[in-house]
Structure formats: C-alpha cells, structure tokens
C-alpha cells in the first residue's frame, strides 16, 4: 500500500456551505462526505511536463503586440508540500482580470475597459527547487452581485495539480493591505485568520527591479505525505 497524504485540519479550507457567499447555497453537498482511503488512485497524479508550456506563457505582459496598461509586477515563490519539500516540475496555472478589474470573458460586463494587450492567463512549471515566477499587471478590484456594493479584493487565481490527486488545489492570491479584506465573503470563508494570511502575498523591495517592476512573493503549500507510521503498523 502506498503511503497516504496527511489529511487537512478542519479550519484550513472554507466550508462549501458558506452562506455569506450566496452562490454556495445550491452548490454544496448536504449529505455527509464519505471517507476515501488514499489508494494508488489518490496518491498518484498527472505529470504534465515542460513540453506543455511555452516561454511566453509565464509572461502575461508579452502575449500581444503591445504592452498592457497597468502596474507591472512580478509574482514569484515556491511550491512546497506540508513537509517543507519543494514540489518540482509541477504545473501552475493562473488567471486574472486586467488592471481595471475586467476579465476577458463574455460574462464579465461591468463597465471597465478591456485591454487589447492583455489576456490574463498564464502558466509555468516549477523548477528543481519548486520555484515559479510570473510577470503580469497588478489586477484591479471589481464589483460583483453577491450583496449591495460588493467588491472583490484584487486577486490572481492559482491552480495547482501537485503530484497526486490528493494534492489538487485551486486558490486565490491576494495583495497585502487590501482595504476590501474585511468585506469579502470569499476571503473570509476561510475562518482561521492565520490561514487567511497564507493567501496574502508579501511585497518585496529586494526582489523589485529598478525602473522595471515591483515584486510580490508568495509560497504555496500543498498537503504532504503522512510520515507517521501507518495505522496497520502500529
């Protein structure tokens, strides 16, 4: 039997039933979840190598003829597991609105301008130390229909496959000091304030590049293998 992954603490992830985020009402299971043992299906996962990713995929500023408008930033960090080990050669996918807070999507109709030079999607593969790096524009906040005068804090969507089905995670990276944090039901659906902090990137003067771009750093941690002895061995 392969070793399983350590199961998440209760407070790490938001509850699927989070009434303040209204769309969860009809989109959360009501029946209790059934325990799934970590068998070979759960401890393995797709290995999607570098051949899927082109050089420009990680540079959202260079995907069109001209440069997008907005504040040029770098977003970089490491993909780690819960045991502190780097997750190498793993695909990271991101998507975001432009600097005005508008997504290039047919359903996004709020009256902020689209940017002809910005698609808002990127991907990269982590290196031998689990590092990743994107160049992009800082996304803008935007309104949504959840409640009166609802605005999402600026964020970038991140999708991580890790190395195993049990590690799959989709999350959002936020920016430090956003005044919208107290009002956002999606951010606050994570009940533990310390866990919320782990979704917020940090500004780095050291990594910022003179006359080029401000830098934000953010490490992502997926589940690690359970390294305590298996129950059967105790």
């Amino acid at each position: 039997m392969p070793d399983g992954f350590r199961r998440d603490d209760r407070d790490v992830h938001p509850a699927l039933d989070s009434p303040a985020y209204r769309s969860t009402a009809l989109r959360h299971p009501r029946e209790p979840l059934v325990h799934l043992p970590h068998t070979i299906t759960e401890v393995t996962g797709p290995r999607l190598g570098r051949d899927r990713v082109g050089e420009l995929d990680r540079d959202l500023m260079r995907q069109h003829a001209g440069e997008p408008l907005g504040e040029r930033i770098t977003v970089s960090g490491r993909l780690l597991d819960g045991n502190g080990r780097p997750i190498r050669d793993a695909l990271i996918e991101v998507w975001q609105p432009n600097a005005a807070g508008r997504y290039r999507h047919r359903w996004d109709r709020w009256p902020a301008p689209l940017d002809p030079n910005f698609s808002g999607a990127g991907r990269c593969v982590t290196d031998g130390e689990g590092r990743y790096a994107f160049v992009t524009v800082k996304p803008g906040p935007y309104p949504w229909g959840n409640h009166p005068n609802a605005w999402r804090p600026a964020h970038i969507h991140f999708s991580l496959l890790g190395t195993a089905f049990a590690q799959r995670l989709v999350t959002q990276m936020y920016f430090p000091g956003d005044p919208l944090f107290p009002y956002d039901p999606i951010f606050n659906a994570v009940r533990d304030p310390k866990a919320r902090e782990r979704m917020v990137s940090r500004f780095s003067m050291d990594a910022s590049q003179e006359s080029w771009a401000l830098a934000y750093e953010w490490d992502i941690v997926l589940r690690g293998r359970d390294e305590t002895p298996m129950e059967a061995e105790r």
Partner: protein
Amino acid sequence: MSLPLTPSQTVGPYLALGLPWEHGPYAVPEGSAEAIRISGRVLDGAGDPIPDALVETWQSDPEPSERFRGFARCPTDDEGRWFVVTLRPGRVPGPQGASQAPHLDVSVLARGMLNRAVTRIYFADQHEANAVDPVLASAPAERRATLLANLEDDGYRFDIRIQGPDETVFFDV
C-alpha cells in the same frame, strides 16, 4: 518540518480563462481505438445546470504514457454538459490487500464552490468487481448508484448532482 497549508478558494465564474486546454477532455488522442467516452451534466440543488464548472478525471490505470495522459479536464457548457474520452481503467489494489473495481477519481470545481467536490466514477456493467470494491461498499447502499456510469448509445453517462434528491456521493479525500 511541518508547514501549514494554503487554503482553497473558488475558481469563480471566469475559470474558462485559465483552465481549459485544447484537447483537455481527451486523455487519449481523439479517435483512439479502445477509447471510451464518459459524459454527463453537473446540476445544482435546484436541478439546474451549472454552466461554470470544471470536471477533472484521473486514473492510475492503465499506466499513463506519452499516448495516454491518465488525466482529462472539461469545462461545462451552457447546459452543464461535460465529457471526457479515456481508456477503460482496470482493477487496482485497494486498502488491506483488497482489489478495487475499475474507477476514475473526479474533481468538480465551480463558481459557488469554495473547494473542489471529489467523487468517483465506477461502471455499472462491472458487476462482479463492483460487488467487492471496498470504497463502493463504504458509500450508503441507497446512494451507491450515484457512483455508477451507465452505458448508453454514445458512451457512458455520469451526471453529477451537487445537492438535492439523488445527490451524488462525495468523498473526503
């Protein structure tokens, strides 16, 4: 060293910007001889289609290779429909020396879902293997059928009901 985990957040309504791939639903190249097609809809607690969901499937058998990715992903369309084309999984080892029936692991992600929902696809025509599968046996008997894909004219059919009567069995992975 133990590091605290990064929390999950919703894919939001605009997942189609970042997640769909060309040929994403095809774990094997289109037109492969032994390929099977599995399709269905993702429905909410009112029975309405979820048009902003993503369905991902993973199987460890047959062993992934250059011609077989083992993994497929498909965004739902305006009617909540999705499909994947893959190879028929075989039996694989399970807990305590048991054998598992052929299955795929499934992640469902959507706007309005703050974390993925995990389920499994089994095949209704694999009676013998299903009868001794330990994971199927752990699902409540009266809801077990929600984990079975049924063979229809255009392949296997597997609807995913996030909530409500006939709610699909979801797992804590």
